């Protein structure tokens, strides 16, 4: 089974895992270890078309223009924040859907996981860099003093022409990583400063290499989408956990990686990793470990794992969730103690026992809720920041308490 097949299967199965993790783990332990990543982004892509989302929304500018581009809004947001974001825009969407006379798209929890995973996932793939900027970085970083490209340059290091068959910059970053110790030694010997990357400079370099390379009749090599679950395993086996801790939460030896990877794309994360590779090598050496080497898609998998750290961010404040339940007006319609109410009692709702179940139920019933809210002249509740996560945890705890009571 290919890595992608593995991730797809594992992602789909892990929907339940995520719910289970939330369900059975005590609140104090939510931040300790994240569950496997949920959702099948390729199934989510199909859903994006089949459910008509594409009529109003776009990915990388491809699709409708009425709503926001999901590749932009999905960046750096957690699953919970994305769920909140979707909820916030339902009134406008309900009106639009009714105006156009189409049916309200509904989602199961699994489907919503697929869909949100897709929206999150696409941001992982950088747009190509600028060859013009890449030429400048290539010159300023003095790459030609060691490498030839297009028949020009020194032969201290390998010629870079063959990288032209990869449109994605990750192979270049992986090659640099693997050659890191040798590069550092040779650069030091020649008095050439070690290149330091900012922003998307790795992508720019790759774009320039593609343009300047003399490699002809290129049989372009495309990479299959990285597997964050494989990356998670590699994070352990490649000794990253020694410094960055389980699931990248950091330790006294290395910083947490959640914030660092937030809103960054593959080439940017690859640049950051390179910038710190020297320090990493030193730190690993102190631990008696060698700097790991990456083959195939391993570096991409690890970066995907780092990228997803923010996605399945767990934990939350149940007390704040309870406050939100009151403040957002949920309590007006939903009971929590078995008493009669307009909407279902959320302490007894299976859907509310998981975030995705809650989000899917809210989404599916949004039109009815919208009509009701309209008649009662209540403002549509909006969820910003971590509010959806806190509310979800509060409802999950309610559900747990209810079950424990039974």
């Amino acid at each position, binding site marked *: 089974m290919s890595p*992608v*097949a593995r991730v797809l299967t594992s992602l789909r199965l892990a929907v339940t895992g995520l719910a289970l993790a939330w369900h059975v783990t005590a609140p104090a332990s939510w931040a300790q270890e994240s569950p496997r990543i949920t959702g099948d982004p*390729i199934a989510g892509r199909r859903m994006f078309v089949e459910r008509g989302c594409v009529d109003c929304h776009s990915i990388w500018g491809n699709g409708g223009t009425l709503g926001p581009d999901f590749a932009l809004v999905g960046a750096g947001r957690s699953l919970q924040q994305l769920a909140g974001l979707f909820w916030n825009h339902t009134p406008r969407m309900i009106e639009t859907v009714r105006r156009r006379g189409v049916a309200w798209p509904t989602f199961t929890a699994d489907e919503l996981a697929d869909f949100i995973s897709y929206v999150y996932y696409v941001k992982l793939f950088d747009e190509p860099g600028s060859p013009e900027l890449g030429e400048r970085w290539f010159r300023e970083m003095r790459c030609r003093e060691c490498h030839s490209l297009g028949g020009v340059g020194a032969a201290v290091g390998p010629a870079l022409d063959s990288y032209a068959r990869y449109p*994605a910059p990750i192979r270049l970053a992986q090659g640099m990583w693997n050659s890191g110790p040798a590069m550092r030694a040779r650069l030091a010997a020649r008095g050439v400063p070690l290149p330091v990357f900012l922003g998307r400079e790795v992508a720019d370099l790759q774009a320039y290499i593609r343009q300047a390379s003399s*490699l002809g009749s290129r049989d*372009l090599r*495309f*990479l*299959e*989408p990285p597997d964050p679950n494989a990356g998670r395993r590699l994070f352990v086996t490649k000794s990253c956990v020694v410094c960055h801790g389980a699931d990248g939460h950091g330790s006294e030896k290395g910083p947490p990686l959640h914030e660092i990877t937030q809103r960054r794309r593959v080439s940017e994360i690859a640049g950051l990793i390179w910038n710190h590779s020297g320090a990493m090598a030193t730190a690993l050496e102190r631990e008696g470990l060698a700097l790991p080497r990456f083959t195939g898609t391993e570096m991409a998998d690890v970066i995907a794992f780092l990228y997803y750290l923010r996605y399945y961010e767990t934990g939350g404040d149940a007390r704040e969730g309870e406050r939100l339940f009151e403040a957002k007006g949920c309590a007006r319609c939903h009971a929590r103690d078995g008493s009669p109410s307009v909407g279902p009692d959320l302490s007894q709702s299976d859907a509310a026992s998981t975030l995705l179940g809650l989000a899917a139920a809210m989404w599916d019933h949004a039109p009815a809720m919208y009509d009701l809210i309209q008649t009662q002249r209540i403002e549509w509740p909006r969820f910003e920041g971590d509010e959806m996560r806190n509310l979800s945890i509060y409802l999950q705890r309610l559900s747990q308490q209810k079950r424990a009571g039974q």
Partner: protein
Amino acid sequence: MSVTRREFVWTAGAAAAALAFQRGQDIFWTPPQLPDAGWDPGIESRLTSTCLLCPARCGLQGRTVDGRLVRIAGNRLHPMSKGGVCARGVAGVQMLYHPERIATPLQRIGPRGSGQWEAVEPEAALTLLADRLAALRDAGRPEGLALLAGYCAGTMQDLWRQFLATYGSPNYIADDYPDGTEQIAALMHGIPRRPAYDLEQSDLILSFGAPLFESWWSPVQAFAGFARPGDESGERPRLIQVDTRFSKTAARAHTWVGVRPQTHAVLALGIAYVLIRDQLYDVDFVARHVNGFEDFRDASGRLHEGYLSRVVRHYRPEEVSASTGVPIETITSLARALAASRRSVVIAGSDVMLSPNGLLAGLAVHSLNVLMGRINRPGGIAFGDDPPLAPVGPSRHVRLPRIGTMPPFGPGDPALEFATAVGRGEGPAVEALLLYYANPLASSTHPERWRDALDRIPFVVSLSPFMDETTQHVDLVLPDLLPYERWQDAPAPASYPYPVWGVTQPLVEPPPGGIHTGNAMLAVAARLGGAVAAGLPYEDFTVLLKARARGLFEARRGMILGDEFERTHHRQMEERGWWLPEHEEFEPFWDDLVQRGGWTDLLRDYTDPDRLAQTPSGKVELLPAELLRALAVDGGGRQPYVDVAGLPLEGDDAFPLRLLPYRVSTLASGTLALEPWLAEQPDILQHVPWVPWVEVHPDTARSFGLDDGTLVWVSSARGRYQARCKHYRGTAPGHVNAPYGLRHPDGALASPLQLLDGSADPLTGLLSWSSTFVRLERA
């Protein structure tokens, strides 16, 4: 029972009166007994397929009711045709149910051409064919087998080539559409492939005589480029048509530039003059990627005048205007339009290439793309890819020369060369000839040579599903299934800037006794055994297609056809270097591919230097050394960028009018009379349904006493045919525009090509379509 128009009107009137009389009473439009009449609603189904009626290979969706094809529409998932389909594609329904269709094999029982046939079982026909071929091979004369094949790009062509190679014959004789652009690409770029045109991204299309909306490689591609919305600046793509006649393409263009016949290239170099004079060309591109612009010395040290000197010396606008008839202001404005465009493309069409100096003229027109740096750039010229199909079998090469001579830079007319050689008894004796979608007695410019050739070949087999002119003179007819009854693949033409592999699947059941030619040849290969069977080890053609599609599955790139969002998404992913696998197993991949109609890969790599030039220098050669060598040996003193106009011929008293044949969009390739739907709309400008016509300027026609609609003889020194004289102001005075491929209602062919004087470009061997003079006489 037939009903006359008068009877119908009376009946309808009586019915209306009866209805009025019965107003207020109950009327049952569906009497209870109607179901008994067998008029129940039918069972409807829709299947995707690909059109095989012209090289464009558009996506189709066939609608059937109770197993009968009732409508052909477009497949909206096709990346180029996007749900569109032309009149010819729609009329395929009438081809399917055409009364002249041959459904089962026939064996001749009388003299050739006598029309005496005997129906034979398919198995018996296959045995007959296999036995003849086995005897020929066993006698040690496999080169005595020849195939004349019409346009059949894709697996059928590969199957034929594999069959012949493993059998031991070099004689794959193409009878398709050579246009000379492949030779331009080979000479200037070192890439022996017809160029592709990225019209979908062009903002200016400058066409020199290319019939984009009529009979180009893909009219739907032209529509896709022309009819799309504007870019981010709101500018819509512009089309400028340089043409000798006010054609359908000219009528659709934003600007029509009328030009004298055989002077298109002179105009192109006049434009080049202005671009160079005003420094409007891409100086950086020319400096970095082009050889031959400046004067240069060759390997022997001989000094050659470069492109710059030749253009500046010979193509001042005043001289160009006098030669072409195009005003100086227009020449200047065309140059400035090119310079102002960010994504222009210049196309050399058949009017340029099918002339006595076609290759040199084509080089001159294409040089504008080079000057403007429009090679392997968005919206410009590209060299596309073939779909990554698995090979049909292990490749073999037959070390024997093909029958017929070849010109230095092109195939010429290999079918005519073959017929001429065979008719004269030159080369190895041809003892068996297979005709696959070829009807040379109708389509050839010299059918008499084909008659001579056929007389010398003892065993001729036609695979045509229609009793066309040539099929009437064969020994065995093994009719192929029609496109709506068979499996086939349909790769897009080379004019597409990206590969598309369309799949044709049966929309309806084939007739009893019908046999797919692919299956027939695989069966014959199995019976022949040995290398032939080993080279084609497929149970049937569908198995072969699936085997080839494994190459697509394993390529880990591209996509099964999808809608606009999916196409863009896949392309964007590939631009970023990633590829989304949709199928983990081959069978679901194949099922999805068939259901959606095919496969494509829309990414274009603009950085690969081999897509710019594969010459020894790695640069585009404006003055290719091999061309200069060939001209030095046998060029009659001709020089590139100097001798690009046609010969200054004028008519005489016997034949005073210049004949300009052209293809119409509904061309039926001369095999079949037009289906009724097509015969009624042969060309939107002329409105001459059902009969062949010729277009003459009204003043010219009147000078010969010919009224509009007069039936005339069109006569040249070689022959004559009948047509209606159509007064048309879009024809230059002194010229006769003649559509090619039409027939009279009785089936008689009206072919202006059979009047051509035979003059050809000696470099490519392509016949000149604009060097013949005719007269018109009242019939």
